[in-house]
């Protein structure tokens, strides 16, 4: 029987979990190193690829051949160039690897921690854009996995609600600050039934950003002591910065010997200095917490518990901010690095009950999850702007954010002018309720030829149906002729899939 697993494909670390024989989630270790979490780093050798801690080690000697933080590039059309050692815009000329190809190598490595894995649930940040979700699905397909996606904080709350001895009845706030992304989800939990109310997030806020700020502090201090700057792109310094950050979670001050162009220098960094260097990020965290409460139409006092997820929640100032805003300390009790993978394993079990034994089935039988749409999904229309006194193109929301899934919503429009030849059928996505076309992302766009002799005011219907897996089916219909343009936004695979697969003919270590 093929196994089902949950995978947390993280910016800095990834993890894989499965349900044990009794239906409890269990994180799988790397059989070679014994590590339960795997560094999301990929080294491209001549004939082989190394994933994990060893890849990071290789970056000291061959920095250009090691890819870090590929998750942050998932929504971009870029290629990692091994010759320049960076992601570049894909102009068709650069030789290298796409983010989905690189992610697929991490997935393949994780998949090998156990045998017989065919089906998986992969977690993604709540605010991961459509392009990034597509790229994740492509990565899974490249690694021969049949997958479904679940939002990271949603997976985490599933894990928390299934912990033995914990009763989470009421509203909870899941605070997920990982290596590269930050998500907050507010959910209503009743036993093992989880109803997501809202999710907000920042795709570029996490431990990696804090490391960068420590690097800047090191650079400034080294220059002050020695008169010359250190190279902040030196990978070994990244490791030092990460180490300092971790130590500052328990110590007030850390001293490190830094090797630089003018020899070694002993540099002290205090917790206060570190906190002050990341204050912009801390402000963003506060804003997102406020936004989440406002979106859920709740006050801090209405939230029963704050649940922590992600390694960066170990930073003391982060916990202080949570305490200040929520007026209550958050729950600490699970391994924050593993909660997402465990939740994904539980969700994988719910979605694939036919592959579970009777004990596992019983364990997940009462688990229920209701999620919401994390974006405003809309379309572009032309309306007369009474203020500007002219026709303007605007974004009109079809599915509002936080609508319970699955959902199907129809909106009625009209043909604009007599003898109009076609309508551009656009599907848009935005985090905010935007009318302005400059501030939305167009995720699909196809024309629909109208019937001959279409008249101004003829009815035109737009229906969006969104399911739990993030697949959206959009129908644009000219009512009189019943002519339709259907856009399927089930995140698919690129046309050059075969080519992508062939170029990944590596041994993975």
């Amino acid at each position: 029987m093929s196994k089902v697993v949950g995978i947390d494909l993280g910016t800095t670390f990834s993890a894989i979990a499965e349900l044990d024989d009794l239906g409890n989630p269990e994180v799988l270790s790397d059989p070679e190193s014994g590590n339960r979490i795997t560094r999301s780093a990929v080294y491209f050798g001549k004939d082989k690829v190394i994933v994990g801690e060893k890849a990071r080690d290789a970056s000291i000697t061959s920095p250009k051949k090691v890819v870090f933080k590929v998750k942050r590039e998932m929504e971009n059309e870029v290629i990692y160039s091994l010759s320049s050692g960076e992601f570049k815009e894909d102009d068709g000329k650069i030789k290298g690897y796409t983010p989905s190809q690189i992610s697929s190598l991490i997935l393949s490595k994780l998949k090998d921690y156990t045998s017989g894995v065919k089906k998986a649930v992969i977690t993604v940040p709540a605010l991961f854009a459509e392009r990034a979700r597509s790229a994740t699905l492509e990565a899974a397909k490249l690694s021969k996995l049949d997958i479904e996606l679940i939002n990271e904080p949603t997976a985490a709350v599933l894990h928390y609600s299934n912990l033995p001895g914990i009763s989470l009845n009421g509203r909870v706030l899941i605070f997920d600050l990982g290596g590269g992304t930050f998500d907050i989800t507010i959910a209503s939990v009743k036993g093992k039934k989880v109803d997501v109310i809202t999710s907000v997030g920042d795709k570029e806020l996490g431990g990696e950003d804090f490391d960068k700020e420590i690097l800047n502090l090191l650079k400034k201090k080294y220059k002050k002591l020695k008169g010359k700057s250190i190279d902040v792109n030196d990978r070994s310094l990244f490791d030092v910065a990460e180490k300092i950050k971790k130590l500052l979670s328990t110590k007030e001050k850390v001293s490190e010997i830094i090797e630089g162009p003018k020899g070694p220098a002993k540099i002290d960094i205090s917790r206060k200095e570190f906190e002050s260097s990341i204050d912009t990020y801390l402000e963003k965290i506060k804003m997102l917490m406020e936004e989440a409460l406002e979106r859920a139409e709740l006050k801090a006092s209405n939230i029963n518990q704050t649940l922590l997820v992600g390694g960066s929640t170990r930073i003391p100032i982060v916990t202080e901010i949570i305490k200040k805003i929520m007026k209550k300390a958050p729950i600490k009790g699970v391994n924050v690095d593993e909660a997402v993978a465990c939740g994904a394993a539980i969700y994988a079990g719910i979605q694939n009950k036919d592959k579970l034994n009777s004990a596992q089935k019983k364990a997940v039988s009462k688990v229920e999850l209701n999620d919401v749409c994390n974006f405003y999904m809309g379309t572009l229309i032309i309306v007369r702007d009474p203020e500007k006194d002219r026709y303007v193109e605007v974004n009109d929301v079809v599915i509002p954010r936080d609508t319970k899934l699955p959902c199907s919503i129809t909106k009625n429009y009209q043909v604009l002018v007599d003898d109009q030849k076609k309508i551009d059928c656009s599907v848009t996505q935005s985090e905010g309720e935007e009318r302005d076309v400059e501030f939305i992302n167009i995720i699909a766009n196809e024309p629909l030829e109208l019937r001959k002799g279409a008249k101004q005011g003829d009815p035109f219907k737009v229906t969006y149906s969104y399911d739990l897996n993030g697949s959206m089916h959009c129908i644009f219909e000219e009512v009189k002729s019943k002519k339709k343009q259907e856009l399927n936004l089930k995140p698919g695979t690129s046309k050059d899939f075969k080519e992508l697969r062939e170029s990944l003919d590596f041994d993975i270590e």
Partner: protein
Amino acid sequence: MEGGIVWLIILVGWVLFNIFGKSDEEKTYEARKEIFDKIRLQLSVSEEVPPKERGLPNVKCIAVKVKGLFGNPNENKTKVFLTIHDNTDLGDDEFGLPILSAHPSFSEPGSRVFTISAVYDTSPDTYFPDWFSFIYIPKELLLPPKKGRRRLKFNFTACDTATNVTHGAHDDLGTVHYNASDFYNLTTKEIGYMEEIANKSKVEDLTIKLAMCMAATDGHLDQKELNVIKNWAKSLTLELDEDKAEEKKKHFSSFIKKTYTEAKNKKVSISKLVSEFNDKASKGQKYLAIELMLNVASSDDKLAAEEEKFINKIAKTTGIDLKTFKEMKNKIVAKVGSLDLSEKPSEESFGISDDMDDKEKCKILRKEYTKWNSQTTQKDPKRKKRAKEMVKIIAGLRKQYNC
């Protein structure tokens, strides 16, 4: 004396005849007339705050109410129309130029003339026994042909369902069964649509002059800025027929040259220019001018502080909606390649004013954060960079206000 007595007898006789001498037919007619007067279709137009249940903003609107008979004697449905005409300097029975609507929901299909129509299921004796609130119209929705104090004639008609109204007039008066009118004095500061037509050429010139002066605020007028102005002027000739387009092009060519020299040498009185522009331009034209200035300002991929200041100033004096202006500016801010630190968006650009308390300011900044943060994943690296900068500025301001 005798003559006087004769006249008195005649008068008394006439009165007695009138009292006792009317036929039954005449009496029935009078009674019917009295009833008809009571149920005759009437219209009342006044200023009123709409009741809460209407779900309209709590501001004074023009309340249009009807009372009396309107049932169609020919069909079991009645179509009613409300049209508005500018009757300033005209008699009550005449119909002046139609009023236009600022919103398509209140205009005739295919035109901007204000008309509201509705169809009711009726019998021939259907009537509104009491005053019925037909509609509450926000004053800003009405666009008269001229600015100032205008006497508006509101006309309510009950007709056959096949009846149509074109440019405020009924296609076939024979299908109109009942009609009622009332008047309302409206004062508008914005110029009217007839004035807009009359001022069109002048406003185009003033817009070019404004854009030219704005471009010159940083001390130089470069070719890129000039090209944006030239292209804008060229776009105005596209819909004209060949001869007129040629004539217009010639005019713009010499006007741009002349204005270029004046602006470069700082020989234009900005206050006079702005005052004339505000006096002659419609709201739509004001937005177009602001848009042109923003495009000119950003043509060199940079929004200079002096230019931004100039545009802010003009926007404030024009009386356009500052929220809409902020959105227009945001588009430009998102696109330009560089914003020097000295030119970072001020609190004002985010919609923060001095009279707000810190809590309010923090809330506005958070909303701005949501807007810009979602842009940090833009494909365009320039826009991505700008969005990240804006997020940083917002976070900095939040710290400043101890949010």
